[in-house]
């Protein structure tokens, strides 16, 4: 379909710059299919939801739905979602950075580095239902690691209060795609640390710690923060992993929204739109910060 509009453009005016004044509007035909697609299947549905969030059942404009998001159950859902996303993003970012630094700068054999990057590419896409299965088989009540810890080390993690279906269980599972995503995104930044900077610092008499504190950390900081907020948004929108792990019982926003779409459990469609609007606001803000941090970070990556 895209091709046909382009050939129209061409038949009207085969590339001569002198008549470009006449052709100018026709240029746009080449990108029309893309923009129409994006408008109809990405922008309008989202804008429609956002508009619905500010309307009541009769179609009048109101802030009631947004205010209703503060009812205890929904407020708690947002709180738990933000906590899970924040903790999994922060831990994922720290561990991912440590692994990226170890793989790139730690003097490890070079094949380990490419193996790490390949595996990270796979694991960062291995989210959703199968990931939940893996962790249930490993750390569920009858999981392989749970049984091994109990029979060999005498540690019953379930009697110690751990459960794969709990807050920390979910975090542990999310880290399986958060850490690799961090490694994939941060490795170019770690690569961007030039050898000369270390040598220059050493020439000026800096200790290893000073080099890290005054060179490495300030250079990596914007990339680190930027990627962390990206991981936050990534965890915040994740539905399948949490749903497959804990079922519809867990009170986090994506699962609430899932139940709402399935069966209007809030008994108010417009409140459902407000729930979705809240998600867009949070992931939107996270991505805005990502772009700002990334712009700051690019200064050093030339």
């Amino acid at each position: 379909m895209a091709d046909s509009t382009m050939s129209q453009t061409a038949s009207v005016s085969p590339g001569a710059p002198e008549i470009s004044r006449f052709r100018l509007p026709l240029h746009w035909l080449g990108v029309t299919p893309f923009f129409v697609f994006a408008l109809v299947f990405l922008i309008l549905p989202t804008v429609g939801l956002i508009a619905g969030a500010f309307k009541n059942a009769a179609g009048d404009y109101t802030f009631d739905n947004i205010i209703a998001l503060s009812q205890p159950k929904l407020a708690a859902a947002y709180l738990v979602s933000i906590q899970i996303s924040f903790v999994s993003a922060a831990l994922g970012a720290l561990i991912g950075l440590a692994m990226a630094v170890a793989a790139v700068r730690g003097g490890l054999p070079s094949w380990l580095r490419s193996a790490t990057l390949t595996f990270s590419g796979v694991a960062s896409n291995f989210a959703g239902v199968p990931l939940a299965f893996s962790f249930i088989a490993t750390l569920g009540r009858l999981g392989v690691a749970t049984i091994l810890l109990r029979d060999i080390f005498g540690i019953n993690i379930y009697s110690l209060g751990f459960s794969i279906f709990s807050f920390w269980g979910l975090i542990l599972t999310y880290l399986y795609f958060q850490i690799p995503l961090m490694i994939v995104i941060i490795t170019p930044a770690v690569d961007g640390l030039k050898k000369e900077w270390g040598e220059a610092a050493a020439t000026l008499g800096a200790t290893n710690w000073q080099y890290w504190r005054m060179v490495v950390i300030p250079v990596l900081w914007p990339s680190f923060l930027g990627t962390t907020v990206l991981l936050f948004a990534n965890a915040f929108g994740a539905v399948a992993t949490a749903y497959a792990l804990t079922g519809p019982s867990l009170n986090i926003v994506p699962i609430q929204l899932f139940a709402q779409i399935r069966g209007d459990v809030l008994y108010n469609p417009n409140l459902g739109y407000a729930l979705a609007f809240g998600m867009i606001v949070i992931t939107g803000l996270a991505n805005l910060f990502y772009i700002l941090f990334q712009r700051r970070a690019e200064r050093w990556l030339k």
Partner: protein
Amino acid sequence: MKQGSRFWAWLVFGVGTAYFILPLLATFEFSLRKRRGEYSFDAYRSVFEDPNFQTTFTYSVVVAVFTILLGVLLVVPTAYWIRLRLPNLRPVVEFITLLPLVIPAIVIVFGYIRMFGSNSALPFLATARGTDVLLVIGYAVLALPYMYRAVDTGLRTIDVRTLTEAAQILGAGWTTIIARIILPNVLIAVLSGAFLSFAIVIGEFTMASLLNRPAFGPYLQNIGANSAYEPSALAIISFAITWGCMSLIQILSRFAPRSANRPN
């Protein structure tokens, strides 16, 4: 590097590797336990013999193929045209292609359900076939960021303007230029985007489940709720599929620069 820091590097690396390898080993071990008292591949056999596995997996493969076709049709001409004629528009297009990373999939599909119902101007959801089409469209949107980036990177390695002018001098029309000049030159990049799209789409749960389509993702979820050993086998199969897609991308990327820059 000093001895001390190398020790820390190995330590960090070892702990991290253990975290990533253990669940895979444990899942694999668990998946072999279906027969009492000995290891067997019974769980895998029971998965592959399950007619629901065959139909849902086939359904998802077909949906993935159409998703890739739609993605290529949408992205290749656009990225080409942006490079050739409308470079000013590039930030706008890039921004749009990043939106699916900002708007969670569950919100996009919620918007679809609200906008394309039976009584709407575009009643996709009125028929099963229409819903299938809407699922393909939704997946194309999810894959858009990856597809666009892959194709744009591929286009960067070729001289779009010279190739286009050469083709025009030889009398080629736009369809010929895109299908027979540009597409073969960025084929490796397109295939990378295609395999990544495949990996994302094949086990996708949220959209398929909310649109009530008999796809692989909802089937997985259903099996997880109802049986013991088959989920582990399915997790291993899914991991193998993801691994396969990523390995193909790696292998393809080795060919990329040479084939894309081939002078004649």
